[in-house]
């Protein structure tokens, strides 16, 4: 059985047919060609699939597609404007916060959620905001540095 769900993805209204219990992560990747959210653990523990849902960071593997009717979703793809990276994407690249790259889109979205609600966070707030994201290359200091850079701009 499939249902039709319509929501706003990166600023544009989309409609998709999917099994109602399918995860938002799988729908984004398999049905909408949005591949920045990564299937790491698919149990809400690694943060690689983090997206913004109505402005809040959520792990898209734990969101059912049935739960996003008329909601607003942002992914990394949506942050690129006219071919220009978002300041946080640019800062992570410049600071070397992206090593193998698998976790990077999730970190970008967690950082974005923080900076949207708190443009000048403390180091403690920065660390807390990305504590749900795992980087097995260990680029954490560079990621924190990148977020600080944007916060100080």
């Amino acid at each position: 059985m499939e249902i039709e769900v319509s929501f706003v993805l990166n600023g544009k209204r989309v409609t998709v047919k999917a099994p109602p219990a399918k995860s938002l992560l799988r729908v984004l990747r398999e049905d909408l060609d949005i591949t920045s959210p990564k299937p790491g653990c698919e149990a809400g523990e690694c943060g690689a699939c983090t997206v913004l849902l109505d402005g809040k960071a959520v792990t898209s593997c734990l969101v059912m597609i049935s739960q996003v009717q008329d909601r607003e979703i942002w992914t990394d793809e949506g942050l690129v404007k006219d071919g220009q990276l978002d300041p946080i994407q640019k800062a992570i690249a410049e600071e070397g916060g992206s090593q193998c790259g698998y976790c990077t889109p999730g970190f970008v979205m967690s950082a974005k959620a923080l900076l949207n609600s708190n443009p000048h966070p403390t180091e403690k707030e920065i660390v807390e905001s990305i504590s749900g994201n795992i980087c097995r290359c260990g680029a954490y200091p560079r990621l924190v540095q990148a977020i600080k850079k944007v916060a100080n701009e």
Partner: protein
Amino acid sequence: MKVSHYTVHSPRTISEALNILKDGAARPIAGGTDVMVQIKDDLVKETELLNLSYIMDLNYIRDDGDFIRVGALTTYSDLIRSRLVNEYSPVLVEAARTVGAVQIQNRGTLAGNVGNASPAGDGLPPLFATGAKVKLQSEASEREVDIGDYFLGVRKTVRQPNELITEVSVRKMKPGDYYFFKKIGLRSANAISLVSVAAVLVPAEVLTFKEARIAMGAVAPTVIRAKSAEAAILNCQLTDEKMKEVGRLASEEAHPITDIRATAEYRKQAIAGAVYEGLYEIVNGFRSPVNGSSV
């Protein structure tokens, strides 16, 4: 079971939800942070899911005399941000901050933690330490159950299949009450508790207490109170020796299991240490009591 085998009901009102639930076949989902993992691991036996996320009437935090009423869709992030909850149930806020990480706090709900009935649910010990009530509604009836009577075992509760948890009421702490919440996990974010403990202490005079409630998580099939440890705290000076004894008594009341994350022996030592640490912080001035206008 493949993801395509599930039917999902998405009602807009509580009464529609209760109607869907009347034959008891559907599994309610609030945030979904537990259920989605269980679906992936093929642990959900129901083929029908009741998605509550569009029922706006279930998303609230209300001041109601001695209680704070929390709707079934209210997330941990909502609780952390709430002035009312910070003022009157700081022990719940302290626990909410340890739930998963930001992404989980943004989706996970207190009612979902109650419904999932894991003994390691981080939101649960504060409910036992403050004295909460769970509201269960069905099409035909409505009842409130004390948190201490709600859980029967691991994932077993008094909720009937046709009943929905619509609200959790948290009893307000009083100005002057001391409290702590401690969680021991393998890391500080996104880790299931090896043990957890919440405590509320009601003072008699300066740093002596006339009432103590200590609730321990992940050391029994349900959250349990450490009654002998509670009794040992009352009306005495909490010397270092005394605090260690209270920790030891709590540990004796714990009957944890050995699993993939920790041994039973480790958990017993950890709970003794967690209780001692919380008391130590109170006695040595590292913790402020509830002041009733802290925000």
